[in-house]
């Protein structure tokens, strides 16, 4: 993504002008733009033109600013559709009238926000950093299902999903199997040709359970020669096979963690996330008092500055709820200020696009907070606990009391007196 102009400061209003260049950029834009923002971009509108001989409609190119009301992301098409009210004075469209915009690759737009928070700024920096770009493509394939994914510097996108219903191997349908199978392979092949750009991608991994991946590899090699698809022929050495238990997107995690591939993508965010997640799971089975999970616990731990590594899914930030978003943004900032590491993403976790605002967060506590962790775990603190740890705390509920005791153990500075 190219940054054409910027004028903003943290916490204040301001704008940026961006030019998206790859599919991954659209994902960033989707995460940046929210309800209430103003977006300026070119669009087309049909207007009635009176030419004297009767009314005629004409398609006019307009530059409009909209106040965003809904945002839709089409990952396969790489398009974001925005609906909102017009803020530009124009003879063709009234102020406050509804209009829709499509943000596409290669078309610049301006985004205005009333308040830029740290996460937005981080995302802009990330998106405009040239060093971080898509570099791994993966085809997850099994009989009847294939997903073509691009693992980028900061995100993972499913570019194509191919499904086919293959007849079983016995009976009258056995003959149809080969035909259906070849058609399926052809669809997957076309998807690869369309979505994988070898000038960007460092390697193409073909993964899945069983032998479908081998068959696809053979098919692809043969078909590339037959159809003379130069990029595939020239980049044969960039292709590799890996094993995965299913062809669903969440199996990408297995692909990314297998040693040969992990080395190739070690700089990407996805790889880092997979590593953190594995670390978290290991911690959960070895030293569970340091593995924190769920908003209640994570917030409580963050308040104490106890979090060493935080992994939080970005779907939590796509909610159109200012207060909640601010809360999560503060959480991430707080962790960083306290010297911890915070990763916003959670793509390999699979909790992603589908359910907005229902993501998860994980935290790894510093070693010294282990004892406190034990208290938290037994106390089962929930997000809605009265968490005000001021100078004094009067606690009557035993759950909270235990929680408070945990804080108290940590150091009297935060909680001078505790009455239970």
């Amino acid at each position, binding site marked *: 993504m190219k940054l054409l102009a910027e004028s903003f400061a943290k916490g204040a209003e301001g704008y940026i002008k961006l030019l998206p260049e790859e599919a991954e950029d659209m994902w960033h834009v989707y995460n940046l733009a929210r309800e209430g923002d103003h977006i300026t971009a070119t669009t087309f509108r049909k207007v009635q033109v009176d030419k004297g001989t009767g009314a005629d409609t004409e398609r006019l190119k307009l530059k409009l600013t909209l106040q965003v009301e809904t945002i839709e992301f089409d990952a396969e098409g790489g398009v974001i559709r925005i609906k909102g009210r017009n803020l530009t004075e124009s003879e063709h469209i009234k102020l406050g009238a509804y209009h829709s915009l499509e943000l596409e690759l290669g078309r610049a737009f301006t985004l205005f926000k009333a308040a830029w928070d740290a996460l937005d700024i981080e995302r802009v920096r990330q998106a405009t950093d040239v060093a971080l770009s898509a570099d791994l493509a993966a085809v997850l394939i099994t009989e009847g299902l294939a997903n073509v994914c691009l693992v980028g510097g900061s995100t993972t996108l499913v570019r194509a999903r191919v499904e086919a219903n293959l007849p079983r191997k016995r009976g009258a349908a056995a003959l149809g199997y080969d035909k259906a199978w070849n058609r399926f392979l052809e669809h997957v092949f076309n998807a690869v040709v369309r979505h994988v750009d070898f000038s960007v991608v460092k390697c193409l991994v073909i993964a899945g*359970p069983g*032998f479908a991946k081998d068959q696809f590899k053979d098919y692809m090699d043969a078909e590339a020669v037959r159809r003379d698809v130069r990029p595939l022929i020239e980049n044969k050495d960039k292709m590799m096979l890996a094993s995965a238990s299913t062809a669903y997107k969440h199996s990408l995690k297995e692909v990314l963690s297998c040693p040969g591939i992990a080395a190739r993508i070690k700089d990407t965010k996805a790889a880092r996330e997979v590593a953190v997640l594995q670390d978290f799971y290991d911690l959960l089975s070895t030293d569970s008092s340091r593995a924190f999970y769920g908003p209640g*616990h994570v917030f409580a731990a963050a308040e104490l500055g106890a979090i060493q590594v935080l992994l939080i899914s970005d779907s939590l930030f796509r909610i159109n*709820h200012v207060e909640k978003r601010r809360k999560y943004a503060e959480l991430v900032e707080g962790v960083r200020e306290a010297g911890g590491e915070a990763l916003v993403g959670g793509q390999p976790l699979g*909790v992603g696009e589908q359910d907005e605002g*229902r993501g998860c967060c994980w935290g790894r506590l510093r070693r010294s907070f282990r004892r406190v962790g034990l208290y938290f775990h037994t106390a089962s603190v929930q997000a809605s606990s009265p968490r005000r740890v001021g100078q004094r705390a009067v606690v009557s*509920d*035993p759950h909270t009391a235990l929680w408070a005791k945990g804080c108290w153990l940590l150091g009297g500075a935060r909680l001078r007196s505790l009455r239970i």
Partner: protein
Amino acid sequence: MGQQTYRILSYYPILSTIKPARCCFSLAAKPDPSIKALQQPAYLVTPHLAPKKAPQQQQQQQQSSAKATAATVPGAAPDGGSTSSGLEPFRFDTPSPDDVVRGAQERRGGAIPLPQPSTSAAAAPSLSANKNFLRPSPMMQQQRQQQQQTPGIGAEAAADGVAALSLGPSEIAQVSSEAGASPASSHGAARHHQHHHHAHGHERAGASVGSSGNSHSNALEHPGGLHGLHTRRAVKEYVMEADLEREVEAAAVAEAAASNNVDSIPSASSSSGVPLSPLHLVVLGHVDAGKSSLMGRLLHELGLVSARDDHKFQRDAAAAGKGSFAWAWVLDERPEERERGVTVDVAMTRFNTRRFAVTLLDAPGHRDFVPNMIAGAAQADAALLLVDGSPGGFEAGFSEGTGGLHGTPGGQTREHAVLARSLGIEQMAVVISKLDTVGYDKARFDTIRAALLPYLKSVGFKESSLQWLPASGPLGENLVGPPQDPNLAAWWTSGPHVVGAIDAFNPRERATSKPLRMPITDVFKSKTGAIVLGGKVEGGALKPGSKVVLVPGPSQPFSVRSLEASGSPTHLVRAGDSVEVALVAGHGGGAGGGGAIDPSNVAAGAVLCHPDFPAVLVTRFELRVVVLDVPVPLLRGHVVTLHAHVAREEGHITALLATLDPRTGDVIKSRPRCLTKGQTALVEVTAVRGLVLEEYADYRALGRVALREGGRTLAVGIVTRLLE
């Protein structure tokens, strides 16, 4: 024009565009019970203090509260003192006020926990709200009353579900007694909530008052067409069409007579035209245990493989340098299966024994193809578990997985056994093969049996329903007759051979009294151009001319043109039969004809249903699971692959509702943070796209789900509630 409509929309308050559901609910569920819950400790709230509800509901609550106190739920006792005396008497497994508030908020925000028709306590208000649209006929009402008087059906089924998850008898007793006391709340999940935290019970009742309005609007959306989850008619209202019922009864009588006949005259041949009971038999075992070879040889011994094919396989296999795989080639037809010597997909073939028309499902043993094995085992009534008896072979198949994220999953003997049990297979014959490598040593046979039996018992098989026998596929020992090899014949004198063991299985009872359900495993176009669907009928019956509807699929019903069972045309199929159904468009001729659906659009996992009692696609549902060998604890948000009957889908765990006591079914801890190996728990799962599921109490075959991830089976369970 366009502008104007937009403008009208724009006056719609922005606030309500954010979360209309939430707004509507906060208005509806007054007075806000969460406030009440805050003011008083949740566990102290009794129904008498609750705001007035509809009398019916209050009555139910009193009933359930009475039961709760009678059952001495943990948390009921120490409540009184907890506020004054501080920490000591507190028990962590009681819900804190926070839990209650949070639970209440979530439930309201989610806006979904709509009542279940006819099962949950909240059914009554929603039904009355829907009265205008779905007025129960006098007959239906009568039936409902009958059900209330004799709640045995539901209780029995529920009890069975419990047993399937290897739970003890005390729970069964509890369920049935409770069902007797208040038939409306025979539902497992509802019961837990009501028992354990009254405040939850309140909130549930409150929410259901609010949600009745919601389901009302649901009914408006589908006034008569395809039914939604909450508007469809309950399965129990089904009465079979009279003509179909006559035929089904006649067939049942004929079958009973035939099986008596077989018992009395042992030489009754299968070709004499006597209808044999169907038996779906799945062959399980670790990769390379010799499943396909054994079955290939068995088919040969039974005379189902022509000498020409036989010779061809021998020659080709030898030419390919895989002489030992020749028998497996009978079943493994695909080139890649033959090339690699590994079964990939379930091969289905049929043969007759003295008692049964066996549909043989040869499952793949390789770790990567467990999903295919699940699809096969989901249709089976009984299983043959092949165990490699060669030195080291058994140990490889029976190895335990190692923990940690990078640990290796265990052997497939283990995984297959536990999956088979969780998919409803109760009877199994364990065939120990390749004993020729140890000279048919009896000690080896006994060692394996001694090692395997405790494990099989621990996953829920009864010792009485297990058979043990040695056999060899390639050598043809002990397949259809007593062993020839002197070493084996010396000690295996009275035990059964493979076919004998198959005959010793019990046929499964046919669930013909329920509306039709048939999960589709195979779709193709017949030579005449009709769409043919293959699968096993799990409920109800079909005859040519019956109307059926495909879920998911077009809303117009199809009618059955012809039926084929066991490869030959038939005039009637009943639950338990494996059939091929040729369909034509329901409205007779004209539009579309047989080509109304494109075979490539019907995915395996679709279900053929009775048009008046269709199944529904669900995306969110509640499961009661047993957590198996998980490398790491299960958390909320865990992404899994869901396997149910022949369908599979991506999904994730959206909530961990409670951990349960495996014996009594009581809630040990509500909203646990994570689930570890061996726990029994209630979880809520969301699928990315819809799955056709039914509650386990209604259809067992459609109510079982396995959760897998990364090549391991994480948990298996039964569907206790459909939510969305």
